[in-house]
């Protein structure tokens, strides 16, 4: 094992500025989309009084939970004392802060009155889990910055583990809080399940790690920095475990709902006749976001190919967005059961007439705003790694610390196996 050296991202300026230019263009288009929606009002979106949160929330919640998931790598190194993960801690922290920034921006820019953000910052109702989240989010940002300082500055090192432990608890609280935004809603059948909170935590593990791995592989490949097979193998195996975790929670969520007769219609609709939501669930969430990446990750040959591992990460991200779409939009589209045992024959306000689900079709500005948030996150990351020493010079097998289990069992010589 050698000393880990961190160095700025020194890809050729032309390439770097092209990348920044593309990201800035996407951010700019997102800003225009926001300006359009803000100027006209939300009637230009697919959102309505039935589906009140739309595509921007899919992106925002995805980015926010991914933010907390991206911090996992740092936590594994600091809190669980896995030396192998330590060199990745700085990138993990930076990406985490960047993703949170992107997600929050999308969330805020989709408000009906975004200019009243200061009201949200100064007037609180502490019974609201939303108000709690404002503190959880801003606190998370501050803690991550402190965490980065403790990782990068010699003066901060003594506090590193304490801050790391605190950050781990905070990020768990943050994702629990985000899941609870939905899980605490008694009004809608598909929500009203506390399991959504831990499910969001596990989802954050998977989505955050997938994004982290892609960013790491891209930045390293661009500059020709080596990534050893050992660290890649560990990360992809970890991703596999997290995907299985998402599967487990998805299964228990549906079994919980299915057990009560009152929810039979809901589960039947979601899994069989929900149209786009059924498709998104089976094809997006389960197949693309779960089975396919698992197939790659545990395939004897493909799992050793970097491009395939990157593809698995990409699939997890696509599946993650699909899962958010189902959870956020599908759950709203399903009509609220105000009159159990009765069929709504007519309604002046779309109360699920004859059991019909509410209509929602994402519009281009909504998607552009969401993509703008993604671009903000990547832009912040790109600038961060360029100007500061976030990336280790090498993650080659001989540079990285040995796996501590191997030290105990067999000694450092066989650690490479």
């Amino acid at each position: 094992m050698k000393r880990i050296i961190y160095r700025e991202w020194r890809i050729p300026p032309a390439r770097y500025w092209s990348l920044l230019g593309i990201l800035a263009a996407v951010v700019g288009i997102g800003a225009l989309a926001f300006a359009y929606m803000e100027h006209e009002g939300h009637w230009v979106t697919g959102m309505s009084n039935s589906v009140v949160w739309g595509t921007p929330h899919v992106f925002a919640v995805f980015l926010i939970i991914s933010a907390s998931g991206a911090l996992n790598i740092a936590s594994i190194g600091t809190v669980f004392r896995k030396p192998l993960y330590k060199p990745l801690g700085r990138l993990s922290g930076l990406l985490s802060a960047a993703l949170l920034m992107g997600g929050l921006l999308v969330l805020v820019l989709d408000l009906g009155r975004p200019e009243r953000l200061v009201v949200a910052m100064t007037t609180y109702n502490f019974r609201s889990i939303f108000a709690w989240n404002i503190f959880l989010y801003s606190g998370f940002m501050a803690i991550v910055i402190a965490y980065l300082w403790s990782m990068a500055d010699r003066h901060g090192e003594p506090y590193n583990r304490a801050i790391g432990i605190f950050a781990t608890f905070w990020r768990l609280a943050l994702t629990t809080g985000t899941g609870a935004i939905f899980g605490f809603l008694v009004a809608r059948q598909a929500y009203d399940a506390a399991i959504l909170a831990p499910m969001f935590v596990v989802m954050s593990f998977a989505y955050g790690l997938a994004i982290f791995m892609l960013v790491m592989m891209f930045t390293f490949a661009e500059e020709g920095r080596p990534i050893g097979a050992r660290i890649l193998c560990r990360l992809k195996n970890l991703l596999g475990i997290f995907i299985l975790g998402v599967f487990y929670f998805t299964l228990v969520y549906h079994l919980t709902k299915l057990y009560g007769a009152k929810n039979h219609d809901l589960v039947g609709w979601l899994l069989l006749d929900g149209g786009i939501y059924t498709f998104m669930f089976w094809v997006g969430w389960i197949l693309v976001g779960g089975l396919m990446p698992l197939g790659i990750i545990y395939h004897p040959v493909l799992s050793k190919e970097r491009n395939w591992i990157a593809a698995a990460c990409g699939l997890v991200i696509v599946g993650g967005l699909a899962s958010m779409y189902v959870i956020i939009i599908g759950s709203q589209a399903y009509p609220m059961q105000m009159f159990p045992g009765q069929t709504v024959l007519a309604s002046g306000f779309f109360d699920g007439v004859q059991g019909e689900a509410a209509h929602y079709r994402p519009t281009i500005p909504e998607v552009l705003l969401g993509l703008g948030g993604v671009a903000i996150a990547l832009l912040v990351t790109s600038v961060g790694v360029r100007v500061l020493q976030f990336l280790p010079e090498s993650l080659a097998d001989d540079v990285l610390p040995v796996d501590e289990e191997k030290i105990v069992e067999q000694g450092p010589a066989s650690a490479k196996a």
Partner: protein
Amino acid sequence: MGKTTEMKDHHEPTDRSADPGPSDSAPSDSGRRAFMGVAAGVTAAVVAPGVVLHSVTAAPRSEAVTSDVRWGLLIDTAKCVDGCSACVDACDRENGLNLQSKPASAPQEHWDDQKAVWIRKVKLQDNQTGRVTNLPLMCQHCEHPPCVDVCPTGASFKRADGIVMVDRHTCIGCRYCMMACPYKARSFIHEVMEDQLTRVPRGKGCVESCNLCVHRRDFGEESTACVDACREAGHEAIVFGDLKDPESNIRRHLAEMASRQIREDLSLNTGVRYSGI
């Protein structure tokens, strides 16, 4: 609707005359100070009546709302007539909802789900027995309103007299209350408002819902627009009153007939009760 017009007058801006208009008193040779004095005097003379008038009309509203009363509605679904929309139309007029206009390029069906609706008619059929029920549905004015619990800024609030409403000054348009309401009672203003009533201000980007004609409450009136309209249509399916007063009309009705709350399982203790569901 004479009452409505009258009430609108209460609220019409009375300070229009306060606008001094184009001034013809240019600064004279006596200097700026003298001009300022004159200007102040003129302004005071013009504005003062408006201020006085305002304070007179505002008198009843200066009394704080108390929890001695709890306003509520009782809906007798047996009297609610299929196809009648008197309550809905009256609410639309009373609260300026009929002033909403569909943006030219908005598809009609999408717009129907985007415009604000405070009260709607719902027609139900029992799956087992086939019995058909008609009822109006609006904000249920819960004692424990989920919309109030979830609102991050406290803009969604419950008055001491039980009315649940939105403070449009602190609503940030996050729509979490709409996610939380079990009755789909809330609407978001999706479009720029060009025309609105003074008594029911409305702006793009905020959430709103039935407030039991709160402007009428503040002027000590005894009914709501929907109740009046239903009575005028000859149905008397809706009764308004104080749920805390044992002598009130609504309490007498509640004592006589069996009534229920929609989604009783949530234990929200709604201020709107239904008989025959």
